[in-house]
């Protein structure tokens, strides 16, 4: 009897070997575009490979510190498409509290280091980071442009109020920060 039971157990074990699993990275909560992903935003599940969706991450090392470009719902497998920069967007994500504004600039407004200095209305200085600048061919013309990140609404107002910012050439001009 014992021998029969043992045989049955062994046979069962042979029929149903433990299934291989792979680790998949999942969001622990809703994650938002522009907000850096931390380790505590994630958990891992081990699943049989036959359920493995396409394009998902198998290690947290490839996800922690990345910035999603779209909302990721809680308990969703993190997919490479969540983290890809949409084609055409070279400005990256927008941080909370920041505003991004795009301006056309002229070649003479870029200094030797390839940066621009922005002067707002009434010759005040706009404290804005140029997060991207480059050229794009549009309508047969090459357009230089800068993408500005401004940290608060007042500065955004100053940028907007200038209509078109004047961009200083050469040495950084002195002046007060623009405020409303």
């Amino acid at each position, binding site marked *: 009897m014992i021998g029969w039971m043992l045989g049955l157990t062994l046979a069962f074990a042979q029929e149903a070997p433990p*299934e291989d*699993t792979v680790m998949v*990275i999942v969001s622990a909560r809703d994650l*938002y*575009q*522009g*907000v850096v992903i931390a380790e505590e935003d*994630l*958990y*891992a*599940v*081990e699943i*049989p490979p036959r*359920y493995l*969706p*396409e*394009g*998902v991450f198998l290690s*947290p090392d490839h996800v922690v510190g990345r910035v999603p470009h*779209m*909302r990721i*719902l*809680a*308990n*969703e*497998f993190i997919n*490479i*498409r*969540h983290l890809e920069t*949409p*084609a*055409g*967007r*070279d*400005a990256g*994500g*927008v*941080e*909370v*509290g*920041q*505003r*991004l*504004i*795009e301006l*056309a600039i002229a070649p003479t407004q870029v200094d030797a280091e390839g940066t621009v200095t922005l002067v707002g209305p009434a010759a005040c200085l706009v404290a804005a980071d140029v997060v991207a600048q480059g050229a*794009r061919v*549009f*309508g047969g013309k090459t*357009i230089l*442009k800068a*993408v500005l990140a401004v940290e608060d*609404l*007042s500065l*955004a*107002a100053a*940028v*907007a*109020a200038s209509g078109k910012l004047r961009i200083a050439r050469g040495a950084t001009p002195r002046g007060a920060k623009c405020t*409303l």
Partner: protein
Amino acid sequence: MLALILAGTAFAVHVNVAAVDLVPGQPIVADQLYDVDMPEDLVADAVSNVEISELVGRVPRQLVPKGSLVREQHLFEAGTAAGPEAFVPDGHQLVRVELPSGADFPLPTDRVDVWVKGPEGYCIAAEASIVAAVDGPDGAKMVKLGNGGMSAAWVVIPDAAVERVRNAAKRPVLALRNAIEVEKSGRLLCGSKPKETP
């Protein structure tokens, strides 16, 4: 240390998976989905035990990447019109805003503040407005994510601000904000009283 959960052992439920990227604003067609049986502990909040035919015609509110399980939260309510109009709630309208030549942003589903020039200078006509579509370089309206070089954005504007945006003295300026910032601060809104200093 990442929490690790062993899954894939519960009984199976029927779920629908995006066979291609599902694009916000564009109604789902049958070829864009396939169905599989998956263990219940893997499907989280996915739409389950629903036939593909029941999802055909539904309109995604965000991009649903290929390979994702379709969830109700990904979709507008059943019966929502397709196209950019899907993003327009009652009391709002779609307004076309010209962009600087060859703009790289905003993209559909982005949130923007709409600055306009009025009699008393620039102010925010509409805050945290959603971009429902963009016009491509050729002027064609696109609801899918753009490839840059856009010429205009179709922005969802509250009825009360529509005329202000349409009749602005200069081209309105769109300031891109993080999508997490959907709440409106009310600061610098057109027509609001300036903040008094003590």
